[in-house]
């Protein structure tokens, strides 16, 4: 029974794509409304976090960035390859989970496919993500690395990552309507997830634990890292940009798997809880 329903849901979304575009536009336009720097903020924020993390991890704690393409060793560039995708996921999940609550009045008074609210939130985040990755390509060029050939594959991974984020946001947003605790729980979880993912440190550091076994006190941390879905999206991006190598196929496969699985499950949860939204809000 799930098949025809899914087709119907996709059709509904496709039919209201203009509304989707308008929602995305609303989100992007209102984001920096009333600020003096406006869109510059979307670049200032990652720049500032990069400076902070570089100061803390590269300068004070002396985390050694691995040697990348053409002997490139630059912690800030290494960090950005992981931080920009992570920021996209964080916005998708943490902003996405409150989207239904924030638009309660709209849901109670008007009809449109409710999924559009999630799609547009992820869409707006994706636009920012695209701009940031575009800037990153320029920055790499500035350091003498030509990342242009990787762009087609990068786009594929980004779209898969967006599908993954959408799946999470779909499930969490409806859950949050019924249990407001979800938002706080997710806030905590995202913090743990951030440090569990090799973003501020190289994955090789985890694999090198316990004399190369990747174990720490008997816990197989390196193996666990490969089960972390965020790794499946972030490592390939870093492989391409920083290391200049084709991503490991197992990560790419995992990325496809995680994206599809999360999106399907998220949509299922959403379908289940969607009908009573207007009453519960």
């Amino acid at each position, binding site marked *: 029974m799930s098949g025809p329903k899914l087709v119907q849901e996709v059709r509904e979304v496709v039919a*209201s794509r*203009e*509304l989707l575009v*308008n*929602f995305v*536009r*609303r989100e992007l*336009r*209102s984001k920096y*409304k*009333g600020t003096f720097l406006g869109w510059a903020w979307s670049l200032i924020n990652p720049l500032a976090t990069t400076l902070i993390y570089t100061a803390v991890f590269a300068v004070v704690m002396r985390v050694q960035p691995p040697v990348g393409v053409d002997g490139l060793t630059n912690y800030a560039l290494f960090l950005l390859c992981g931080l920009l995708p992570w920021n996209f996921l964080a916005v998708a999940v943490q902003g996405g989970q409150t989207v239904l609550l924030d638009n309660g*009045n*709209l*849901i*109670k*008074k*008007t*009809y*449109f496919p409710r999924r559009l609210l999630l799609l547009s939130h992820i869409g707006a985040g994706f636009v920012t993500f695209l701009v940031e990755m575009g800037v990153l390509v320029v920055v790499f060029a500035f350091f003498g690395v030509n990342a242009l050939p990787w762009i087609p594959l990068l786009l594929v991974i980004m779209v898969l990552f967006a599908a993954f984020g959408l799946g999470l946001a779909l499930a969490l947003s409806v859950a949050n309507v*019924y*249990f*407001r*605790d979800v938002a706080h*729980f997710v806030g905590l979880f995202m913090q743990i997830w951030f440090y569990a993912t090799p973003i501020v440190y190289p994955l090789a550091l985890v694999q090198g634990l316990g004399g190369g076994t990747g174990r720490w006190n008997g816990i197989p941390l390196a193996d666990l890292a490969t089960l972390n879905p965020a790794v499946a999206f972030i490592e390939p991006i870093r492989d391409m940009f920083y290391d200049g190598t084709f991503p490991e196929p197992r990560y790419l496969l995992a990325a496809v798997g995680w994206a599809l699985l999360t999106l399907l499950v998220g949509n299922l949860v959403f379908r289940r809880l969607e*009908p*009573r939204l*207007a*009453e519960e809000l």
Partner: protein
Amino acid sequence: MADVAINVEDVSKRFRIYHERNQSVKSAVMRRGRARFEEFWALRDVDLEIPYGKTYGLVGHNGSGKSTLLKCLARILVPDKGRVVANGRISALLELGAGFHPELSGRDNVYLNGSILGLSRRDIDARFDDIVEFAGLEQFIDTPVKNYSSGMYVRLGFSVAINVEPDILLVDEVLAVGDEAFQRRSAAKFDQFRDEGRTIVVVSHALGSVRNMCDEVAWLDHGRVLEVGPADAVVGKYADATTQTPTEPAHVHPSDVRMTGLTALVDGRPVQELAVGSPIDLRLEWQADRAVAGLLLAVQLRTSDGMLIGTARSDALGPLTLGPGTGAVDLHLESWPTAAGTYVLDAVVLEQGEPERELDRLSDAARLAVVAEGARGHEGLILLGGSWS
């Protein structure tokens, strides 16, 4: 099927009333599982065919489920049983400007709201000037709507919704928007809608306007459909039903002097029904614990939905002294002033002075059904009368 705009097939809708709601995981765990709630059926097996090109009214007292039904038609609520099948584009006027984003300009919001209502960008381009002109906001269209007055906000919302030109328009008591000029334009737009053969579904408490606007009416009671049929007949029955179970007459300001009753008399006999234009006596009964001087009596006539039509005061008798004890005062009307319908009378006693003070009001003291031989010439609220030459 083409002559049915909306088909409501055995629709039931259940609501949950939470006693203590589990909105935190902690409370869910503590209470071991589900939240405690009661269920009640807001709609029960509602089966309706709303015909194409007609204006359709939904009446019923508060909690009868008419607004719930409207929301089911608008697809905002999903029925627990049954289904709603609509043929054509629906636009719902439930809350005006519900989709507005305060930070965005009026222009951006017109496009946003229009697309929520199902218009494409090109459609909105074509209607944009009409929308802005209808709302009368040409000068402010590029101002963020957070700086709009509430009137401007609602006017723009209404203007977008009405200019969507839906096949089916759902309206929930939002006709009284803006100043008089705007209301006139709105009413004209509704008329134009009807003339173009579009379908309108109206939920309203104002029985007079339902009777005037609607072709067909469904009467809902406790979530069930009691009666469906031509507007005049169903609204009439609904009004009668509310007359037969009159609300207990209420004293507003209990004091030493009280109004205890109001009786309508024709030829000395108490009546509850009256022919249009006939003479009538209204007997006001009072009770006083002690003698109170400087009083004035009054009768107020209202429609069954509470609108004041007229007042008759006993000024001509001079200051009255009533009590102690009980008694009655009569008011004679040479000719009953209203057209056919159900009317309510209040009995009032006032204390003269500057300012006047209302000592007691017996509201809903009597109800009168005014009937006419044939409806022709009896539209509206009052008899205009006059002599022709």
